[in-house]
């Protein structure tokens, strides 16, 4: 890539009452990511341009946005991965209410999480209060715990984006969060009834859009949602299991 080239940006400016794209232009040099450009525009042309960021290294999940229509992290999107002669469009995550410019109101996510029954461990295995767990038993849970809560999967899921089922559906992030708790080797809580009734796992029709945008490459659909769907089916619909449960009196 040239040491420096001129690039046009279209950045959405506005708030909950509406807004419009504004054009900016700047020199982009080797290795720059979209967040660098936004910062440069902020420092030199639009000091009041609002955006969120913290780590600039894909670790905190603050800088989520839609770049050329694709949900991604601004700090991990290198300019040289975008088509060179095209205007770069940056807009906020569209599924969440706007606060200002690139900043959206993601408080729904925090409310959803609070409803999910918390971790409840079995009694410690050892006298010193510790547990014995083996690596192979936690690999899957660790995969889910890589989640940086960028909410890009929530943004892209059509159940939220197009059908606005926020009240009946917790979204891929929290289906996976629930799966992480359910698959935690120490956990003793049961969240399957919630998943089925309150959390709307049935709304997910396995389009895998969430998995495609996850910057942590978590197998949200295959590794979390589908196994949870199976457990729900086993527990509530499978006649044999139902019979078995009746006998156990559970």
């Amino acid at each position, binding site marked *: 890539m040239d040491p420096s080239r001129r690039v046009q940006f279209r950045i959405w400016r506005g*708030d909950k009452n509406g807004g419009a794209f504004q054009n900016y232009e700047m020199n982009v*040099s*080797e*290795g*720059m*990511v979209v967040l*660098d450009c936004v910062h440069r525009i*902020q*420092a*030199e042309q639009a*000091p*009041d*341009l*609002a*955006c*969120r*960021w*913290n*780590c*600039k*290294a*894909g*670790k*905190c*999940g*603050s800088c989520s946005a839609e770049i050329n229509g694709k949900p991604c992290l601004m700090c*991990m999107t*290198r300019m040289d991965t975008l088509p060179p002669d095209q205007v770069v469009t940056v807009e906020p995550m569209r599924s969440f209410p706007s*606060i*200002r*410019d690139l*900043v959206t109101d*993601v408080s729904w996510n*925090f409310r959803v*999480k*609070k409803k999910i029954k*918390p*971790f409840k*461990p079995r009694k*410690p295995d050892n006298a*010193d*209060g*510790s*547990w*014995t*767990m*083996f*690596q192979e038993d*936690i690999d899957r*849970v*660790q995969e889910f*715990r*890589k989640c*940086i*809560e960028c909410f890009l999967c929530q943004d892209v899921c059509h159940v939220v984006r197009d059908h606005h089922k926020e009240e009946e559906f917790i979204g891929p992030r929290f289906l996976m969060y629930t799966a992480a*708790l359910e698959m*935690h080797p120490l*956990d003793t809580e049961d969240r399957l009834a919630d998943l089925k009734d309150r959390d709307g796992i049935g709304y997910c029709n396995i389009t895998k859009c969430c998995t495609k945008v996850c910057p942590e490459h978590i197998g949200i659909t295959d590794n979390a949602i589908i196994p949870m769907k199976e457990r729900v089916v086993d527990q509530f619909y499978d006649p044999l299991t139902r019979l078995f449960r009746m006998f156990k009196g559970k």
Partner: protein
Amino acid sequence: MHEHDVIVIGAGGAGLRAAIEASAAGVKVGVICKSLLGKAHTVMAEGGMAAAMGNVDDRDNWEVHFADTMRGGQYLNNPIMVEHHAKEAPARVLELESWGAVFDRTKEGKILQRNFGGHRYPRLAHVGDRTGLELIRTLQDHGIHQGMEVFMEMTVVSLLTTGGRISGVLGYDRERGRMRIWKAKAVIMATGGIGKSFSVTSNSWECTGDGHSLAYHAGAELMDMEFVQFHPTGMVWPPSVRGILVTEGVRGEGGVLRNSEGKRFMFDDVPEAYRNQVAKDEEEGWRYVCGDKNANRPPELLTRDHVARCINREIKAGRGSPHGGVFLDIGWIKEKIPNASEHIKRKLPSMYHQFMQLAGVDITQERMEVGPTTHYVMGGVAVDGDTQMSCVPGLFAAGEVTAGLNGANRLGGNSLSDLIVFGKLAGEHAAKFVKSNAAVEVDPAQVEAKTRAIEAPFERPNGENPYAIQQDLQNTMQDLVGIVRTQKEMESALVKLDQFKARLKNVGVSGHREYNPGWHTAIDLPCMLTVSESITRSALERKESRGAQFREDYPDKSAECGTFNLVAKKAPDGSMQVSRRPVVPMRSDLKAVIEKMK
């Protein structure tokens, strides 16, 4: 106006742990943080948290951890805090497990521990290279069910005091741009670090030293501010990622440092105090990495201050990498183990991604280019070693904003454990404090004066751009008060800091009050200036080289300087006074521990 018993400022590891503890004691707790919950700087921590659990090497215990931490801090640490830390860290880590944290495991199914610089035995409980995420998420997910009230995206701009005691805090709400008052009987400061005062840093935008500055202006003392840790390995290329951290975990897993001639230069200069703990050759170093208990650590795992200076020396001597760093090589371990690529990706997944995505470098095959980056501040609010209370009644502090645990240099991994050990202590003692002290009224005059100062930049829409001042300040600190310091340069830094203060009076912002980053930068600037001044004045006063402070004009350690800490305090006339305070004396039983571990 909000009313709470305890207000915690900061939702990093320290703040959340403190809030959990205070809530558990049955008092009403509010947590205020600049970002969304779960995004605080702690989320970026990679390598692990130090706790002498002895899961990997059963020779480890609190005494070894105590001695390692004191040696690393060059004996300027507060031994009482070091003792609390070494003794209580294992229980705090286990507690995280009971709240849902999922640490990597040993073959026996215990919490796995890894090697880190300055720690004698493998001691860092970790989760790959995303330990900070695991810590913050665990505390967050546990904490939201404990009854605390969380105020996100709000920034505290002033501590309110009445008759010298804490009465509350004043802040603004980022989303609406309005001022808010929180009345409180006690405040726990847990605001983290100051890295943003320098131009090359691993720290996020939040690390503007707010807590240091707020506490100072409320009458607290800032101790050990000259000790700023420059982490040896930050990214150097491409320019936009300059400073981003490359975890010490890379070296813990066998990564080695080489100069442009391909030489492992760390073997050339091993300090006396560590001579009998360092491998004599490459072969022994590798055995250590593989867990051989009879082998000594490779010199790459010496303390950070030392490694950073050696790298600096190589670069200055013209033996650096193309972009002004040195080479860090982990890919070489394929000579030693099968499936090295897979092993590296499993042990250091986020490093692999970071380099792949941001620099286009495959660390399993290619060498990384790294150089020192401003990382951590050992100095901070001076507190009582047992209760974490500062000299301002009702003001507690925990985490990076606090001085005492680390002395002249922090060992890697001692921060995450610091957060949970002292977060708990601060929460516990703040709750005790509010139970035995009634609330005091907020002083409206303080609120009004501060509010006016905060809003003033809007009256100068054509004033100076806050980003310009910020950048000049960062460059000044980097160039004149960085890794290698001299009296002359630091004196010129002080002159410049005065100029920035003058420019600050003319800073202006335009636009609305809602979510206006230019305005926020203008508000951060005075904090950054206070912090920078305290660093510079303390560094000038310490006429020796010790730990993180290297003075070219005083290249040696002085025995006399080893007897005191430096304390910056606001004088009645508003000027900053730096004075000496004898180090906290060590009890004889702790002295015996040090002797035993020599």
